[in-house]
């Protein structure tokens, strides 16, 4: 498997460093060679897009050009960056004039072709659920989670490649493969409002509240996401929501990569669970212990069964002997 260009994007450098490190750890453990895109810069995010199309496409094209120095495949764990880079790549390829314009205002032109992956996409295509199952070291069967895709991992299917943008499945498949207890809910893709978190926080407080309610309704103890913006919104702002809405949510929000890491045997410390506002460690520890108990219980039952069978056999044998002796 060749080298892979890695585009962290601004959030993963600081506000989502745990997403960054857990992702690198997991991907490398799964045998992928990552190289950070040299001198990568911001994808422009929504502000660029809402200001000028050419600007937006050029800011992304620059990163694709840089990535191309390393590899023809690039993974962008942040779904927002992924959306920008992927759709720019698609558009620049479809539209020669745009490519010319874009190259017109960059220092050096971008002529290559780079396939952009989001995290779930990459894992399913390059690793696959079978391998994941084999890599499981810790039993997460007692960790009840709902996968939260947010806006940009599913929509639009022409970009993300999810079969249905309304019911994306990639995270579900990965989480099931690593043995977590995945609950179905019909709220996978309802927006949390993160992308306007800063200028209009009122918006997302309404939206996140619903997401927490739905998660509990689905019988989940934690929400799993692969988006730093959603995470910031659901985790860092959970206290805010509680104070504004008079609610009392305490729902850990885990990154997909963190859950994978835990399943693959890494410690909560290594997965930087401590970085979260709503501390997931008690929940995780609890789940692991419960799983151990359940397993022990099963083993005990199994052992008893064997013992009983053995006893029965001996009894039979003895009766036989006695009978013979009598004769």
């Amino acid at each position: 498997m060749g080298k892979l260009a890695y585009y962290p994007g601004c959030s993963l450098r600081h506000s989502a460093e745990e997403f960054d490190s857990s992702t690198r750890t997991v991907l490398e453990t799964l045998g992928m060679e990552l190289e950070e895109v040299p001198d990568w810069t911001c994808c422009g995010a929504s502000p660029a897009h809402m200001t000028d199309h050419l600007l937006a496409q050029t800011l992304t094209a620059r990163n694709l050009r840089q990535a191309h120095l390393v590899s023809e495949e690039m993974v962008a764990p942040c779904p927002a960056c992924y959306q920008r880079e992927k759709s720019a790549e698609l558009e620049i390829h479809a539209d020669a004039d745009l490519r010319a314009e874009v190259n017109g205002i960059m220092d050096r032109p971008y002529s290559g072709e780079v396939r952009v992956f989001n995290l779930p996409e990459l894992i399913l295509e390059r690793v696959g659920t079978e391998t994941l199952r084999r890599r499981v070291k810790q039993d997460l069967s007692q960790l009840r989670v709902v996968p939260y895709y947010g806006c940009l991992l599913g929509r639009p299917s022409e970009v993300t490649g999810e079969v249905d943008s309304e019911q994306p499945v990639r995270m579900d498949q990965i989480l099931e493969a690593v043995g977590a207890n995945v609950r179905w809910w019909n709220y996978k893709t309802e927006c949390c409002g993160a992308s306007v978190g800063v200028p209009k926080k009122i918006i997302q407080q309404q939206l996140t509240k619903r997401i927490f309610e739905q998660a509990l309704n689905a019988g989940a103890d934690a929400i799993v996401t692969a988006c730093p913006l959603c995470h910031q919104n659901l985790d860092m702002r959970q206290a805010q929501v509680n104070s504004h809405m008079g609610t009392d949510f305490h729902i850990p929000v885990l990154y997909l990569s963190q859950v994978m890491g835990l399943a693959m045997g890494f410690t909560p410390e290594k997965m930087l669970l401590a970085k979260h506002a709503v501390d997931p460690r008690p929940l995780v520890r609890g789940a692991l212990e419960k799983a151990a108990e359940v397993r022990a219980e099963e083993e005990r039952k199994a052992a008893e069964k064997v013992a009983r069978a053995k006893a029965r056999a001996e009894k039979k044998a003895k009766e036989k002997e006695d009978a013979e002796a009598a004769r």
Partner: protein
Amino acid sequence: MIRYDPQQATFYRDKLMERVKEDVAECYQCGNCTAGCPAAFTFDYPPNKIMRMLQVGMVDEVLASKSVQLCIQCLTCTARCPRNIDIAGIFEDLKTIAVVREMKVPEDADKFNRLFLQNIAKYGRLSEAMFLVRFNLASRKPMNDAGLGLPMMSKGKLEFLPKKSGGADEVGRIYKKALERSTWEN
């Protein structure tokens, strides 16, 4: 009393056709975009009404609306539109037009975007802390969103002395050139 403006209507319909390859005439006002919009309750006009206004040529009213600026580009409307219209795409296009026309837009949206872009034009990457502070000062709400800032700081997630990325200067040049080129007519 609303006056229909057929010229504006046709003019902007054609614009959209070439800019985002979408036809507002396709909209049959089912309201699904409004129904699913997570931000609509902060809008002055619901999305389906924006579509209607475009159909009849109330383009200026639309460009001046909060709705356009407060759209959060979650693509829910686009994904669920029974007529397969990329409504989010249309909203995005409207925002860029507002910028080019240097219109006074509500909700500091322009400020937010400008500061954001200036920030990356300077450092190449977004320095979240620096940006937060700048925006709050600019919008005269110094403690705005402290609710986010504080926990982040306590978790050591904010960096206050931004480092320049190697690509910063090029980004600066791109920013300049792009904005010189962009006009409402293309």
